[in-house]
Every structure is written in structure tokens, then in C-alpha cells.
């Protein structure tokens, strides 16, 4: 633990990530004002004691919007990474355990998945089912599957060639029990690091989709949509376009640093060679 917190990337990343989670958790029980309450008399107020960062064109409190907006980012991150991790890791483990045509098929499907960046998948889903947070989550989740499948398969293949796996096979253990007892625990650290980094990418993707109007829908606050609303007021209230962007950048920076730190801590050899 001491080693972990003396690692600068890990320490800064952990603090920023905890702040993100704390903001979302706090918003569940308390916000300075209601983020849904429109008060046109209080529109575009500058920062003061009542509204620490001022108000938006509908008179809503910016701090409250930012706190609740953290929830959308976390929800999308958790579910989209969960989809990618569960399906992608399962496919990657299957490819490594079965080899042959199963591996070839799964890897070609993964290649195929790369043809549709998250934003393209989201555009297609939106064109058919209409915009919404669920479609954004599905699109980002689908985009994560090939990445997790490839990384899992590459790491699992390395474990499968180790002596202790040979020993387990010699003892008569089947592919499934070897995968669950030996392969998965040995690649867990790689998957945790990747999940952290993909979480950051999911937050960026959600913000972009919400900015475009394809993600989180009104009245639910989201950092991406706050930016899109702020853009039309850049001449009157330029700071409105700054706060949500800082929130996104700090969240992504925190998760990326946490991922880098975890990678160094799990595999100190990498840290030395970098």
C-alpha cells in the first residue's frame, strides 16, 4: 500500500478517480440546488455564495449540474466497460483455450469490430431507435468488446504456454477448469488495467455523444450536453464552456494515471524499462 501511494501516477490518479466517484455519490444525497429546477429569473448569474460557479441559461446551478453529471459518466463507464469486459474476455479466453478455427473466427470478428468506431455504432443505433443513454452505452460497450477480446487472447495464450498449465493438463484437468483456475487469475491484472483505461475512453465517448445529442437526454444533466448548450452562449458566458470540460478532462486524466500506475505496480519490470 505504501509503495502504491509513493507512486506519483497512481496516487494522483487514485485521488482524481475517488473525487469523481465521490461527486457522483454525493449527488445522490445532496446537491447545493436542484439540477432540474428552472428559474429564469436567476439565469446566467456569475459565481457567488449561493451559486459557487454561477447558473446556466435556465437558471440551474452549475455545481449541482456538474455533480449530477458525474453520475452519467460513471454509469456509462461502468456498464459499457462491463459489457466489453465480460463478452470480450469470455471470447478471448475461449479463443486461447480452443485455438484453431475458433481462435481464427473470434479474432477475425474482433478485426471486423474495429471497422465500427463507437461513434459510428452510436449513429446507426440512433438513426434507428432514436437518441438516448442506453443506446450510447450499447454502442460504447460493443466498441469495447474487440479490444478486450484481443488483449485477453494475447495474455491468455502466454499463460497457456507456461509450465504450471502443462502440469495441470498432465494431471487431467479440462480446458474450462484450467481457464478458470489458472489462466483468468493470471491475466486479471492486465484486464483491470485495461478496464481502467477503457473507462476513461468511455467517459470521453459518452461526452462526445451527449454533445452531439446522441447520448444522455434532457433533463438528465450530462457534461457533454452542458458543453453543447454552452457553445451557443460563448460570447455572453464563456466560462460555461470551461467548467464541464475541466470536469471531463480531470476524470479522464485521473483514470488514465490510475491505469498507468496500476500497470507499473502490477508489473514493475515495465516501469523500469520506460
Amino acid at each position, binding site marked *: 500500500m505504501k509503495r502504491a501511494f509513493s507512486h506519483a501516477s497512481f496516487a494522483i490518479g487514485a485521488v482524481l478517480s475517488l473525487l469523481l466517484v465521490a461527486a457522483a455519490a454525493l449527488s445522490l444525497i445532496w446537491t447545493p440546488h436542484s439540477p432540474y429546477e428552472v428559474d429564469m429569473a436567476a439565469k446566467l448569474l456569475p459565481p457567488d455564495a449561493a451559486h459557487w460557479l454561477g447558473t446556466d441559461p435556465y437558471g440551474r446551478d452549475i455545481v449541482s449540474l456538474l455533480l449530477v453529471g458525474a453520475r452519467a459518466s460513471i454509469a456509462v463507464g461502468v456498464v459499457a466497460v462491463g459489457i466489453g469486459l465480460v463478452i470480450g474476455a469470455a471470447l478471448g479466453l475461449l479463443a486461447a483455450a480452443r485455438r484453431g478455427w475458433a481462435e481464427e473466427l473470434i479474432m477475425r470478428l474482433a478485426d471486423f469490430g474495429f471497422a465500427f*468506431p463507437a461513434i459510428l455504432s452510436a449513429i446507426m*443505433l440512433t438513426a434507428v431507435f432514436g437518441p438516448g443513454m442506453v443506446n450510447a452505452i450499447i454502442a460504447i460497450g460493443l466498441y469495447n468488446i474487440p479490444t478486450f477480446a484481443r488483449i485477453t487472447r494475447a495474455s491468455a495464450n502466454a499463460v497457456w504456454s507456461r509450465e504450471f498449465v502443462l502440469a495441470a493438463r498432465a494431471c487431467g484437468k479440462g480446458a474450462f477448469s484450467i481457464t478458470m483456475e489458472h489462466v483468468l487469475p493470471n491475466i486479471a491484472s492486465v484486464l483491470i488495467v485495461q478496464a481502467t483505461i477503457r473507462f476513461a475512453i468511455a467517459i470521453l465517448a459518452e461526452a462526445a455523444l451527449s454533445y452531439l445529442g446522441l447520448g444522455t437526454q434532457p433533463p438528465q444533466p450530462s457534461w457533454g450536453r452542458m458543453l453543447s448548450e454552452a457553445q451557443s452562449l460563448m460570447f455572453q458566458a464563456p466560462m460555461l464552456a470551461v467548467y464541464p470540460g475541466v470536469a471531463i478532462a480531470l476524470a*479522464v486524466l485521473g483514470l488514465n494515471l490510475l491505469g498507468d500506475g496500476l500497470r507499473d505496480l502490477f508489473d514493475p519490470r515495465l516501469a523500469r524499462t520506460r
Partner: protein
Amino acid sequence: MSVFLAKRLITLIATLIGASAVVFVVLEILPGNAAQILMGPDASPDAVHALAVQLGIDRPAAERYWHWISGMLAGDLGLSYAYSTPVRDLLIERLALTVPLAAMAMAITTALALAAGIYAASRHNKLGDVGVMSLSQIGIAIPNFWFAILLILLFSVHLKWFSAGGFAGWNEGIVAGLKSLLLPAISLAVVQSAILARITRSAVLDVLREDFVRTARAKGASQRRTLWGHVLRNAMIPVITVMGLQFSELLAGTIVVESVFYLPGLGRLIFQSISNRDLIVVRNCVMLLAAMVVAVNFIVDVLYAVIDPRIKASDI
């Protein structure tokens, strides 16, 4: 090499066929009756049927898919419902903005990333290195559309050097056109160059540890000469690979950044077509972008094998 090329080509074609099937199923089969959607829920069944016949959507799905693919191969993508013009002409018109924007962003990315990455590697573990790496970490965390908004705030709202959006058009001259694309290209390039600078730095550091570099230094070659004459050429292999992959990211990024700057490119066309329920345009735009991503990945694979002959077909 020819076996490798043939294998990659088959994968490319299979991926394109698969992608077209996915696009067709999602955008043609799932939405149900496009004529009904276009005419709204109050339209009479006769009118809906007449439009369905006119659009050809009364025919079986397999026949429509084949019609789309064969038309695409012949350069006929059909007519836009909303614009009543051939989709092909619309795409060509919009690509005249999106392709130069992506190319400009790639050029800025390369220049920034190579300069920063090589500088950081040459100052390994010193202040300059730590500074560049910290900046790149921040660059990776910044959403490109937010950076675009910040650029507008600074250069359009405060300094008034650039317009806050819109495209002058190539008819106004190349300089005016490029000026309209400069801020969008920079906002796309910053994030990508942050990533590429890190790759360049670690690639240069890896090569600096090689024996032949030590030999060159032992023979009396200066650090500068070693860096430019020996190290860079060898460090470029992973850098070029990542650059190829980044081009796909840039294409996806243009969709968002075009919206920030109100540029009439492919991205804006897609959004206008979604709101117009012009699914034939959406279908062809998505297919075109997916095909560009697949094609760039194919070129990267082939380039990688050309640059590094040790790469065999089985490795990829």
C-alpha cells in the same frame, strides 16, 4: 509476400462484405417501413405504399441488399429522400471538406508528435522529458470537441482572428478554405499528437538502447548525427503503424469537430440525414466511413510488412 498480401486482401473483402451486411440489417431491416417513417403516422396506407414502391422498399430484403451492393460497385448509391439529389454527388461534395480536414489534422499531428517525442527521448528523465510527458498526459485527457470550443473562445471570441465556424468554400481560394479548417484541424491533432508523441518517445528510447547505436557513438558519431542518421529511421516502424491507426480515429473525430465548427462535411451530412430520416444517406455515409477505416487498417498492415520484412502473414 504475395501470400501475405492475398490473405490480407481476402480479409479486407470479407470485412467489407460483413460491414455492409451489418449496416444494411441495422439501417434497412430494423427500422421497419421507411416509407411510413418518412410520411409520418397519419399518412394513408395507399400513399405509404406508393412511396414504398417508388423507393423500392416493397421488394424482398435480399434483393434490396443486392441492388445496393451492385449499385455501389457501379458508382450508383441511389437518390437522397431529403435532397432529391444522387447520394454519390452529396458524398463527393462533403468529402471535399472532410478529407482535407483529416489530412491537415494528420500533418499537424505528425509534426507536433515527432518534435515532442524526439525532444523528450533526447532529454530522457530530465526536466524536458517530464514536461513533455506531463503535457501529453493532459493532451490525452482533453476531449477534442472541448479543445475546439476553447480554441473558438480564444481565437474567435477574444482575439477575433478566425471566424467561430462555417466554411468559406474552396471557391473563395485555397487560403480562405485552409484558414476555415485550421482550428478544427488543430483541435483534432492535439489529442492524437499527445498519443503519438508518447509512442515516438518510447520507440526512440528503445532504439537508443540497441548495440548499433552504441557502435555508432563509439566510432565518434555525435549524438545529433546518431539520432538523425541511425535512430530515427529505425524508430519509425511503430510510429508509422500507430499513425495509420490514428487516421481512423481522426475520421471518427471529424464527425464531432465538424459539428462544433458547423462545417458542411460528412459528419454534418450524417446528422442532418438522421434528423431528416434520410436513411439511404445515413447508410451510405456509415458504410463509406467504415470502408475508409478498414482500408486504412489494410494499408497499415501492408506497410508494416513492407517496412519490416520479418513480419510474416501468420504474425498478423
